């Protein structure tokens, strides 16, 4: 009955028989897409009892926090989406850019999706767009029709030509309202129930204990501390972190008070071949009085003591020396030489926040500007400074990795908050050094551990992509910069990464808008409050389905046990065409190449497999 409503507005035929047929077709398609139980919110007749919004909240969720997370009208329940939908449907033509044929059909807005259902004679499938992935919307009306241009967070630009001025305006308003909803638990991942996946799997992917098990096999100088079990010591850390065995939980708590946001130094990676470690934290709160903290100093001393006698350490500060000094005026600062014997500070300034976002916006603008006269492209590309950021990130990561591998030193990385450029450096350094992190599961674990659990505020950073007209507040493409750096590594070492461009593109898309819950919220604490892990599906279980593998894996992969040192010369770094020019270039050749490689690699097995059947059917002489 719910679905009847949904599609009765979209049917373009008048006879009831046809309507019936069409509805069942659509239902089938939806079911196939795993969206069946995902649309009730868009339906006015949604029975109150079945609506997930009415279900009793978890008692663990405090009232204030729940109000915060649920957005403007937590009690309105299932009604809120339908109020935002001005009109159900319209006839429209969709232009998807070069390479894809235009699509005609009935357009329909639901709570989370924009649907285009082609006419009955059309062979193509239902076309779906997650509203959350719309970054900006532009409407234009002329005569009795209108045009909506949707710029998506994955950098796609779609054009919808809609019949009827009123319909155009209504649809535009609906999309605008629905795509900018801020509440987490009314978002699509909480309704997405794809076939073949089990809810709750997400808990089993890469918990901190897994990583600790690996570290514990290599050294016993470290322990897993649950000092942050209730997220009270550090709201942006996971429940369990790896710390020096010699430091107890009380000292950790005190060190946390000396670090911004409570992010005390924790282990990020243990490099077994050299017995050194990579740590990350936030800046110490030395302030103008140059305060010190005995427990924090003890913690770093214990790190060196645990590594090996006489080990040295480097603190890689991702700000310039001057910026670090200036931070003292606002209560931050950096480690004083005298307070941390054995540790040497290195400053490697990296751009973050606003300038990074602006660089991203400029680059996307340049890539999408097809009028661009050809003789200015390269200097414009240079002017975007995106590749300069890639170079900075990779060379800082190389510095950290070199310190561990060649100098045998322990490395602590931090900037100010320790949730952006810090993670960029630590995760890239691991990719360079650790062959395990270059495997499919290893890389997923790395993203989960060094980005998601380490408290990169995805919701804030990825609220808008490059097209949004809204003034950026907390947006920054740090994670995209990481993916770009990984892509550069993959380009320079085509055999050494087990995953391919496909995985990086998927991570980019899902970080900005996803039917999966993996990238929701800003920290483990928020994820816990929203019950993300039990009520949404994990991207990892989505990606690790066998049907996805061919797109994501690198068929050329062979295990490379060595460190991979990338060249960071400007000539060695390229624009990631697969991402930035993805929608303006014909995709076939590169996809064909990928397919071809797979064919070569897998066909051998296939022919071997098929041989016995043939010979069995052959008459015996």
């Amino acid at each position: 009955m719910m679905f009847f409503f949904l599609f009765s507005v979209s049917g373009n035929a008048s006879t009831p028989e046809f309507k019936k047929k069409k509805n069942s077709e659509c239902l089938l398609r939806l079911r196939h897409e795993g969206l069946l139980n995902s649309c009730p919110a868009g339906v006015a007749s949604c029975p109150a009892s079945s609506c997930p919004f009415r279900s009793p909240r978890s008692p663990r969720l405090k009232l204030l926090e729940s109000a915060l997370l649920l957005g403007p009208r937590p009690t309105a329940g299932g009604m809120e989406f339908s109020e935002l939908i001005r009109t159900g449907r319209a006839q429209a033509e969709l232009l998807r850019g070069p390479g894809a044929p235009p699509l005609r059909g009935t357009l329909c807005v639901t709570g989370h999706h924009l649907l285009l259902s082609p006419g009955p004679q059309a062979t193509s499938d239902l076309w779906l767009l997650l509203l959350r992935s719309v970054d900006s919307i532009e409407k234009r009306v002329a005569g009795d029709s209108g045009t909506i241009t949707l710029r998506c967070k994955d950098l796609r630009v779609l054009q919808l030509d809609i019949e009827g001025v009123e319909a155009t305006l209504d649809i535009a308003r609906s999309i605008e309202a629905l795509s900018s909803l801020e509440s987490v638990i009314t978002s699509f991942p909480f309704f997405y129930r794809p076939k073949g996946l089990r809810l709750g799997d997400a808990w089993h992917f890469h918990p901190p204990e897994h990583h600790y098990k690996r570290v514990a096999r290599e050294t016993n100088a470290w322990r897993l501390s649950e000092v942050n079990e209730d997220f009270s010591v550090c709201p942006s850390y996971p429940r369990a972190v790896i710390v020096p065995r010699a430091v107890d939980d009380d000292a950790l708590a005190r060190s946390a008070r000396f670090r911004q946001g409570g992010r005390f130094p924790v282990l990020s990676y243990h490099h077994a071949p050299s017995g050194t470690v990579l740590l990350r934290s936030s800046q110490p709160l030395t302030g103008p009085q140059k305060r010190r903290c005995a427990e924090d100093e003890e913690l770093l001393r214990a790190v060196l003591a645990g590594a090996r006698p006489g080990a040295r350490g480097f603190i890689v500060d991702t700000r310039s020396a001057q910026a670090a000094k200036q931070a003292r005026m606002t209560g931050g600062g950096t480690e004083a030489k005298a307070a941390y014997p054995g540790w040497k500070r290195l400053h490697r300034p990296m751009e973050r926040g606003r300038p990074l976002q602006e660089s991203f916006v400029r680059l996307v603008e340049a890539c999408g500007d097809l009028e661009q006269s050809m003789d200015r492209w390269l200097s414009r590309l240079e002017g975007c400074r995106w590749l300069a950021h890639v170079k900075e990130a990779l060379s800082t990561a190389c510095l950290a990795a070199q310190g561990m591998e060649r100098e045998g030193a322990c490395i602590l990385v931090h900037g100010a908050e320790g949730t952006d450029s810090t993670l960029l450096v630590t995760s890239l350094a691991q990719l360079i050094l650790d062959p395990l992190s270059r495997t499919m599961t290893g890389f997923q674990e790395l993203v989960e551990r060094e980005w998601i659990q380490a408290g990169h505020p995805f919701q804030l950073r990825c609220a808008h992509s490059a097209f949004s007209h809204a003034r950026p507040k907390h947006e920054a493409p740090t994670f995209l910069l990481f993916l770009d750096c990984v892509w550069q590594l993959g380009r320079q070492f085509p055999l050494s990464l087990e995953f391919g461009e496909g995985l990086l593109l998927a991570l980019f898309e899902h970080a900005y808008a996803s039917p999966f819950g993996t990238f929701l919220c800003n920290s483990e604490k928020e994820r816990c409050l929203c019950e993300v892990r039990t009520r949404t599906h994990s991207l990892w279980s989505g990606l690790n389905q066998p049907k996805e593998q061919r797109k994501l894996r690198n068929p050329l992969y062979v295990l490379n046990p060595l460190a991979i040192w990338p060249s960071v010369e400007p000539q060695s770094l390229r624009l990631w065409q697969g991402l930035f020019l993805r929608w303006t270039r014909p995709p076939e050749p590169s996809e064909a190449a990928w397919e071809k490689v797979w064919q070569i690699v897998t066909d051998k097995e296939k022919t071997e497999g098929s041989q016995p059947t043939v010979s069995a059917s052959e008459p015996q002489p």
Partner: protein
Amino acid sequence: MPLKPSSCLEDVPFVMRGPEFPVWLLHQLLSIIHTPWRMSLLRGLLGMELIGISVRPFLDFQERLALLGTFFILIDKEVIYICPFNGPIKGRVYITNYRLYLRSLETDSALILDVPLGVISRIEKMGGATSRGENSYGLDITCKDMRNLRFALKQEGHSRRDMFEILTRHAFPLAHSLPIFAFLNEEKFNVDGWLVYNPVEEYRRQGLPNHHWRITFINKCYELCDTYPSLLVVPYRASDEDLRRVATFRSRNRIPVLSWIHPENKTVIVRCSQPLVGMSGKRNKDDEKYLDVIRETNRQISKLTIYDARPNVNAVANKATGGGYESDDAYHNAELFFLDIHNIHVMRESLKKVKDIVYPNVEESHWLSSLESTHWLEHIKLVLTGAIQVADKVSSGKSSVLVHCSDGWDRTAQLTSLAMLMLDSFYRSIEGFEILVQKEWISFGHKFASRIGHGDKNHADADRSPIFLQFIDCVWQMSKQFPTAFEFNEQFLITILDHLYSCRFGTFLYNCESARERQKVTERTVSLWSLINSNKDKFKNPFYTKEINRVLYPVASMRHLELWVNYYIRWNPRIKQQQPNPVEQRYLELLALRDEYIKRLEELQLANSAKLSDPSTSPSSPSQMMPHVQTHF
């Protein structure tokens, strides 16, 4: 004059001397070493006359053949090589009449340089006997392949004189009335590259002659046009007398002749030189009629499309020297477009600027804008864009195309060959590409000798220009955009460019076919294609998918073009891909996998078809199987 016989073409002289080297150990070594290594070891040892006869029984027939091409070490002395990347290196230089080697005396006697003398464009003395400063006295060598070499020698006793003289003599043999090395080279290969291109066969492959096009021998002894091949394809309706009259109106008698014909719609690509219009705006009825005859060969109603590769202003300026372009008034049934590609001088200066920013040190701070200011990629873009237009016109079947520039041997060759590469998948195979180069470049008189300056000491010659390099760069850009469309890999293209300069093969010598015939190049030299075709696996792209009738349209936007770093910046160790060997290794593995798969597939099909045809004869089954094979490979 010759000091010591040596035999090193592919390999390096071994620095093992003295009688203390035990022969038994050598025999042991020879028995366990893998063939290619064994070969290099043997050559090295033989070259040093170390053991002479005692090795020879171990050689098989092929190895003996390969060793026949012996030549001589002319110089063997200590120098300091001033490496722009790693600083001065003490080394020992060996110069043969083919190449220069430098072996380090410091670090495990690694080979540092290996430069065929043909790539040298200029040798200069730097410093004098009295100049001060460390390493200030020596030689400065400029190469044609984007690098410079500096050697420092001892200031006492004119130590550089013999090196300078020998280098000058053998790098510029023409100035010393010596033969170019290709004529001395006695290498033997198991295939003969000169047999790759046979014009009659190639035209037959295109379905020629047919009702509208005939093969003419009017230029058999190069009497019609001395820079054209002896065999030409012209419209059936044009008599030899017509051709002679048209020739008088075309620069250097380069009349419009067929380059390629579309197998289905029968539109053609025709190449020629500019018409001799001149200041007075001369006309030639025969030329006008001839172009109309070309247009009518496929019963085309629309106009013939003429692509003039030059910028409009250059074409106008050419009138002053008697040239010009086809005007609307004279050629009613033709439409003229200018493609804005600049001349050889602009290209030469552009490449010079590229060299300035990549060698020895790469401009780092403003890499992209300095790359932009060289305009190299912009020129690549214009050439590709022009070729795309030609290909599109022909494949859409709208019109036959006539391409010319001024003389029709530089830009015209680029445009026709690139368009043919886009249109005809045959040219994307290794042999097909060799045929394309042989046909459109070598036989149609691209002036390789003048553009490259083989064995010529005049480094500032205004005739030199990297036109062929630019063409290869365009091919590389295409292969980047269509990773599965070409049978050859990057190494193939780099090898062609290396031997464009090396003078080891006769392939690129001389300006035109008539000169080559006079010098008996095919009899007296070895072809580059012999080297390549005898070891094809090294040059194969494992991802190649053979596709018939697929037209490739590369994206010729600046966004999608990139500098060919692996060629232009290959001497810089910091740019080098760090693990080329595993990649090549993996590619070879994939090639082997693919071959195995094809073989298996064929076996299965054979078994299958045998089975099918046995009980109930179905003759259609093998042909049904064939498309299946082709869709995969």
